[in-house]
């Protein structure tokens, strides 16, 4: 019997002591702590978008912003991608 057998069996054995204290099923806990549901993506399906429908409908593509201008400007350091691991 290799040492690997023994290490793995011992590692699994250590789970024994955790016993039933930890449950993989997340439903058990939601009784006390309701999960935060993601916003319902389909809610915008029923409603029309007045402003989007009219003002910004057919903006000239020439006016489009061509580069990201959000919080990416706070992502600094080396611009070149690091080598793959």
């Amino acid at each position, binding site marked *: 019997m290799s040492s690997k057998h023994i290490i793995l069996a011992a590692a699994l054995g250590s789970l024994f002591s955790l016993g039933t204290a930890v449950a993989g099923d997340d439903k058990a806990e939601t009784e006390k702590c309701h999960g935060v549901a993601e916003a*319902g993506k389909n809610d915008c399906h029923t*409603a*029309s978008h*007045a402003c989007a429908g009219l003002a910004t409908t057919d903006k000239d593509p020439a006016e489009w912003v061509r580069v990201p201008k959000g919080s990416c400007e706070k992502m600094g350091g080396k611009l070149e991608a690091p080598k793959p691991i």
Partner: protein
Amino acid sequence: MGLRAAHHREVLATAPDVGWFEAHSENYFADGGAALDTLSRVRERWPVALHGVGLGLGSAAPLDREHLRRLARLVAHIEPWAVSEHVCWGHAGGRHTNDLLPMPRTAESLRHLAARVGELQDALGRQVLLENVSSYLEFTGAQFTEAGYLAALVAESGCALLLDVNNVFVNARNHGFDAEDYFDELPLDAVREIHLAGHETTRIAGREIRIDTHDRPVCEDVWALYASARRRFGPVPTLIEWDAALPPLAILVAEAQRADAIG
């Protein structure tokens, strides 16, 4: 009232005094997770209606079998008091618009839609409610009025109606008909649920047009039309739809209680 994710936690914690909840079916198509879990818990305390927004029954393209399978699974799990969809189409050539597009009101489209409603009712093993939608255009060659088309759909498919009073008002203004005439044409006993919502009035090329935005309180004109609908169709369960610019739960509850007090 409508069940929206932003209020999930508060609804369960405070158990507001409302008669029932309505959920957008597609938001609960998941295999598991917090949203589905919340809906299941809401169902333990209140009746729930499932309101589908994505099937696009009037589309000529084949019915999405996976969509139907997930809906049937959800209906079996939640056991809602009502299952509804829209009198609309939504996709063609494999591209979905994720919008509720108006039907061309022809005999051909009616046959098609009625057959699809029949397919849906067979798949779910129950009657479904079909809702009238707001529209900003009409197709040429209409062979029915909008209300006449709904009445024919009820007769041909055996479905019931979800009457959106705001949508009737919006379309009456946008397309120039009398909302009371519209009510006259509907089969009295087919209306099983009513929707109300807020809409926006805007102008295109100097002409007024009403856009169904679901982002504000119900306007007084629509409340008045609702009172008329209640006199005709009786005390059917009524829901206020509010999907964008969502207010605090208490305001939604107050609007829902106002609707219950009318009639």
